């Protein structure tokens, strides 16, 4: 990958366009992965609200899965999923 010089870089490291975090998958940082159970999920969206990496995928008002390209395995989603539901389980990756 080309390394840019200071004259070419966006000012103050304010990133957009080609520098978007979308172009830098960070999923390989993970040591645990969340596994989501569609059967148990009540679509309360708590996991979606809390996920710091926007990795809970939602389509037409329903959770449809987890984006492992960016999910860093922090476990927040499993933690906030209501205890009576427990639709997300963390397993070693």
């Amino acid at each position, binding site marked *: 990958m080309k*390394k*840019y*010089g*200071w004259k070419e*870089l966006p*000012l*103050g*490291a*304010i*990133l*957009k366009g080609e*520098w*978007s*975090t979308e172009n830098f998958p960070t999923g390989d940082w993970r040591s645990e992965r969340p596994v989501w159970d569609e059967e148990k999920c009540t679509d309360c969206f708590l996991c979606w609200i809390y996920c710091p990496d926007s990795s809970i995928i939602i389509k037409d008002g329903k959770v449809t899965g987890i984006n492992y390209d960016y999910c860093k395995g922090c476990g927040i989603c499993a933690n906030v999923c209501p205890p009576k539901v427990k639709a997300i389980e963390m397993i070693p990756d």
Partner: protein
Amino acid sequence: MPLKALTGNESMAEAMRQINPDVVAAYPITPATEVVQIFSSFVADGLVDTEFVAVESEHSAMSACVGAAAAGARVMTSTASQGLALMHEVLYVAAGLRLPIVLCEINRSLSAPINIHCDHSDTMGSRDAGWIQIFSENVQETYDNVIQAMKIAESSRIPALVTTDGFILSHCLERIEVLEDSEVQSFIGEYKPAYSLLDIENPITVGPLDLQDYYFEHKRQEIEAMREAKKSIEKVNKEFGDRFRRRYDFFESYKLNGAEIAIVALGSTAGTAKVAIDSLREEGKKVGLLKLRVFRPFPYEKLCEVLQKFKVVAVLDRSDSMSSTGGPVFTEARSALYDLTTRPRFVNYIYGLGGREITESDIKKVANEALKISKTGKIKELVQYLGVRE
């Protein structure tokens, strides 16, 4: 031009009212308390459109300023001393993110021991934070500097800090000429932020991790911006002078023509020095003053040009670097002239710590010693502590 009787604090609050920033996040601290208090009454009275964020500390104040500025707002705040020290961490964030926040800073000493009076230790403590720093000699300059700083900061995309001396100026009533609100507005113009976090059509990342491979490049940009800021400062000074007939520069030369020795000072002491110099001139002594106004970026090229012809330069520092060899103004001014083959001798006087008074006779003593060095070529002590008891 309307005349008003204002203290340094009132003049800063008045300039802020006329600038009418989008957001002010601040926490009161002596001697800057009044700036925040007066401005908050402007907000309460509906005289400004500003969103005033009363925070729980100066660390939070600067953090809220950074957030608001990153959202694209025109942002100001005010603090002093321990407050500026508590902001320290976030000052670097504002500069690194290139957010043109303007801070009205009232110079005051730092603990310990506890002291609420004027010296420049607080401002000098943040001299490497990447902020423009402008010092004021009197209330008129304090007011004018705040208005210019807004435009300088926004045109160079670097935050700027305007200082006035605690109590000596912050609480001193002076007759000053103020501008009309419309003049201030047309001078600073509409603010067009470089980016806005709230622009959801154009999502951005602010403050990413920047390790060994890129951090250095971004800091290099910041250094360059500080160099370029000199052009912005010149432009803004000129425009201000042309419009309002009060001229400002990086520094002011006072009776330097025909002088043999020069005294360098910043802030309110420059006023005292002028009186001392007038009286020494009457005695036929060839002394002059260079009043440094802009300390960051440091105007080393221009300083070099003006100071090189003197035999002795005596630098007054209202703070010490604890380096064991003098104060920050001394170190930088002396370094600026190092490359000359023939250069003045430099001596340093640390003075006024914790608000210790500096008088006309103190400055005369400095001038007379400098004249003596100029004759004998001998420096007894490189750094002296003016008015301190042994």
